[in-house]
């Protein structure tokens, strides 16, 4: 009679063997379920149950690994390793988790938004303007993504002469936030800092864009030394990364438009600026001309007035002279005598119409 081969182990060895077997069989698994009994102990350790209609499994993780806020009732997917604890309790040691389904994604987004908003991460007064003419730009994106290609094409169409350093990273999936964080730290630690850091990614599902709602990434963007411009998804998509950025672009194409001016428009503005100078010169010349004409007119008026005054003076003097004319006195019947009035002398007497030679017979006082 065969007897089943049994292994006798100590409890500790049994637990170790079980964990070895589990680790071999399930090095990493994803489990989807609903969160229940969520709690944080000592401000460091996170415990919750993951359940569905018929089952429930305990989960453990550290608080720093929890980068997406969760609460009871939310549906999530955990990436974890199964483990038997020293007390014989089976649980999942969670490395990462993400909300699953539209409702949970939205709930998680709202929870984190409220938390970060309270800390002032999205405050308008924190926002810095982008440089008008950037000369050195850092771009964080996947170089294979359509959004990146759109961005680069439009930047090249619009402007030139810019040094563009690109960090090729994943822009979706569990590793994406950490890769983008490393790229942000890389550019922020350069001796020759870029003028602006741009993060772009094209459209996708809410799950695809979930990386841009990662708490650590959002905090990294908010504390970047270099001003940030984030353009993720389509116009309707709003991520927390967008909200933490100094400038939010609706799409990668829009990010390119906000980053650099359009060269054709720039040329038009420059030409307009120069053209506007000529009328200013002409206006000044016209002002000078009018001023000169006005001065001449004033001079002419003054001269005319003086001439008039002199003319009146001459007329008046003429009138006086006319009054003194001796012919006028003769005309009134008076006579003019010439010669010495001495008895015996012949004198000349002039009347209005005649001249008389007369001898003086006698001279006496009146």
């Amino acid at each position, binding site marked *: 009679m065969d007897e089943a081969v049994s292994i006798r182990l100590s409890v500790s060895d049994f637990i170790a063997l079980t964990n070895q077997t589990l680790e071999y069989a399930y090095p990493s698994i994803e489990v989807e379920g609903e969160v229940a009994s969520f709690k944080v102990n000592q401000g460091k350790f996170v415990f919750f149950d993951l359940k569905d209609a018929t089952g429930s499994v305990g989960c453990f993780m550290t608080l720093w690994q929890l980068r997406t806020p969760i609460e009871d009732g939310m549906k999530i997917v955990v990436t974890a390793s199964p483990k038997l604890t020293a007390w014989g309790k089976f649980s999942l040691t969670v490395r990462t988790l993400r909300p699953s389904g539209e409702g949970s994604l939205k709930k998680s987004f709202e929870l984190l938004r409220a938390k970060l908003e309270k800390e002032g991460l999205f405050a308008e007064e924190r926002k810095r303007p982008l440089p008008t003419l950037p000369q050195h730009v850092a771009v964080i994106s996947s170089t294979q993504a359509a959004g990146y290609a759109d961005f680069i094409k439009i930047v*090249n169409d619009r402007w030139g002469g810019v040094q563009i350093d690109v960090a090729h990273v994943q822009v979706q999936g569990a590793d994406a936030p950490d890769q983008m964080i490393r790229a942000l730290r890389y550019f922020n630690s350069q001796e020759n800092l870029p003028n602006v850091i741009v993060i772009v990614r094209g459209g996708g599902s809410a799950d695809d864009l979930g990386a841009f709602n990662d708490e650590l990434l959002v905090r990294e963007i908010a504390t970047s030394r270099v001003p940030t411009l984030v353009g993720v998804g389509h116009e309707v998509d709003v991520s927390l990364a967008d909200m933490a950025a100094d400038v939010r672009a609706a799409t990668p194409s829009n990010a390119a438009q906000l980053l650099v001016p359009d060269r054709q428009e720039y040329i038009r503005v420059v*030409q307009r600026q120069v053209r506007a100078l000529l009328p200013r010169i002409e206006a000044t010349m016209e002002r000078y001309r009018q001023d000169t004409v006005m001065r001449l007119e004033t001079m002419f008026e003054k001269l005319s007035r003086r001439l008039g005054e002199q003319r009146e003076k001459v007329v008046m003097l003429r009138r006086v002279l006319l009054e003194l004319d001796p012919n006028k006195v003769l005309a009134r019947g008076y006579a003019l005598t010439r010669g010495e009035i001495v008895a015996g002398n012949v004198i000349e007497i002039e009347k209005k119409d005649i001249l008389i030679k007369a001898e003086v017979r006698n001279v006496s006082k009146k």
Partner: protein
Amino acid sequence: MSAKNSVSIAEKTAQLDALVAWFDSDEFELEKALDMFTKAEKLAAEIEQDLATMKNNIEVVKVRFSENK
């Protein structure tokens, strides 16, 4: 054209702005205006020429961000 040209575009734009501002300032003199206008016209032509020819320099940095260092 290299990225250095962008510096000169920024500088030329600043120079042009200064020239335009001179026309509105108290320093404006009709005798100098034509000379200043000629300078502004020349700068504008240079900016236009630079903008028509310059290209961006794109470099993918040789760092693997998938690895935690």
